[in-house]
């Protein structure tokens, strides 16, 4: 097979992230128009490999799973992962290299691009042709259609813009197992990870997101929003102001410089609606704004606005939904 599309699987050592299914969906569009196959690259250590591989073989649209393992690949350090990815790109002569525009993808893929001497296209929202992509600039205030005039294309994918492929296939893709022979990278070590594993769905994949702003006032008050989110099976988001104030962890920030979400239903509670916030949620199907200022800009993008005090509205809403 000539010049496959290479997708980098994102995982935490146990589970491949759902964003990978969406990245695969973007890759399928390329694969179809170029009539080539998709290689899913699974980087891990030997211990993690079996359980990840078991998931990967069920992903629709993958032609080959390349499972590359090495003791130094168990954590996604950009320095080691980028080197391995570049080696695979050259070995299999991939034409397009894709990863989700998640914290992990953003950290690693530009490093890959530079090593390949390729200019990367970030946050691809749609694919017009194998060389032409649409991406947001200026906090999503403009959409730019760009043509990548290069031998290879390195793309991070805005996953909310692509529907996930199925993870239930029954026919197995081809498996390629490789053991890394690269010397481990010495300059960087992981000291610790603090991951909050709540019972709630992951923000970028949630069907409902309840987001709170500075007006929520405290971490304790955020529990109100958590209750509403739990009742709707949703995730909890926040504005930058709420995160900066320490009401909630940084990984809940929605916006230009945080996460981008596009749920079926988005609640903006006590959020004014600055462009930087809108950049992260304007793609939601239905937006509800709850704000006590009738002139708050958030109402300009909301399908349903309720002018009122969140401390009265939210308990009522939680009780009644």
């Amino acid at each position, binding site marked *: 097979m000539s010049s496959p599309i290479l997708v980098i699987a994102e995982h935490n050592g146990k589970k491949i992230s759902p964003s990978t299914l969406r990245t695969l969906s973007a890759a399928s569009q390329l694969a179809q128009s170029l009539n080539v196959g998709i290689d899913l690259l699974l980087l891990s250590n030997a211990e993690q490999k079996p359980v990840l591989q078991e998931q990967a073989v069920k992903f629709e649209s993958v032609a080959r799973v390349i499972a590359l393992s090495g003791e130094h690949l168990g954590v996604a350090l950009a320095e080691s992962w980028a080197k391995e990815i570049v080696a695979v790109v050259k070995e299999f002569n991939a034409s397009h290299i894709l990863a989700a525009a998640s914290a992990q993808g953003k950290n690693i893929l530009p490093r890959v691009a530079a090593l390949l001497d390729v200019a990367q296209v970030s946050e691809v929202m749609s694919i017009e042709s194998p060389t032409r992509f649409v991406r947001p600039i200026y906090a999503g205030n403009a959409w730019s259609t760009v043509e990548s005039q290069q031998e290879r294309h390195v793309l991070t994918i805005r996953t909310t813009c692509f529907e996930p492929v199925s993870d239930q296939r029954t026919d197995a893709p081809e498996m390629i197992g490789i053991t890394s022979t690269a010397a481990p990278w010495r300059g960087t070590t992981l000291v610790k990870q603090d991951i909050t594993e709540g019972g709630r769905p992951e923000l970028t994949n949630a069907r409902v997101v309840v987001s709170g702003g500075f007006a929520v006032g405290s971490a304790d008050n955020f529990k109100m929003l958590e209750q509403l989110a739990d009742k709707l099976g949703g995730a909890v988001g926040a504005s930058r102001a709420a995160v900066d104030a320490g009401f909630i962890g940084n990984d809940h920030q929605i916006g230009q410089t945080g996460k981008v979400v596009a749920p079926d239903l988005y609640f903006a509670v006590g959020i004014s609606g600055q462009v*930087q916030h809108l950049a992260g949620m304007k793609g939601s199907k239905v937006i509800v704004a709850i704000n006590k200022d009738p002139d708050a800009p958030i109402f300009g993008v909301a399908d349903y606005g309720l002018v009122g005090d969140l401390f009265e509205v939210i308990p009522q809403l939680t009780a009644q939904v």
Partner: protein
Amino acid sequence: MKVLVTVKRVVDYNVKVRVKPDNSDVDIEHSKMSPNPFDEIAIEEAVRLKEKGIATEVVAVSCGKEIAQDVLRTAMALGADRAILVKTDIELQPLAVAKLLRAVVEQEKPDLIIMGKQAIDDDANQTGQMLAALLNWPQATFASEIIAEGNGTLTVAREIDGGSETLSLTLPALVTADLRLNEPRFASLPKIMQARKKPIETIEAESLGIDINPRIKTIKVNEPPERKAGIKVGSVGALIQKLKEEAKVL
């Protein structure tokens, strides 16, 4: 320890950017320009390292047109000791900037480079990672805390999906700043006056012999589809009814 910080001149974050009528680009000719907000955070961090006696010198670098001198003056008003402008009129993309910066790094030999995580105009989030790759240096992107350990290593807390992680990096190393790293100070008037006297070295990009031509071509720029304001509802009951019956999302 010598610290290099990078500063990009961008449209101020308060400006609502418009697309040109011919869809060739955004119209920013008369917009207010400022240092990229993340670069102000990077500068602040470098200056704090100097104030703590850890950094010996802070050098600010910008790549772009002559006018980018203004953001370098700001960087010096905020505490950078001197500045370097890599001058070119060519429209620069992240890979090209990374290559120019590599040349500056080879000249300046800093122990630490602090950059912004993302420029708020192109929203690329690439340049730091690319420069680290070209230098074959350790990287810690999206930093929320930097601690210089004094033994040639740096401990960096960084923001990741699901929480945070802490890395230990061997110097020389490259860090990109996230929003929570610090709250940048404002430049005082006396500092602004002093900064006028500090030196800016200009390097002609052409003299470096690096291919910086854009690899990615902009075909067109559009306004995003506008989201129309919907309706206001009078009560929680009415809201729930709309969400159930009209929007069918509950």
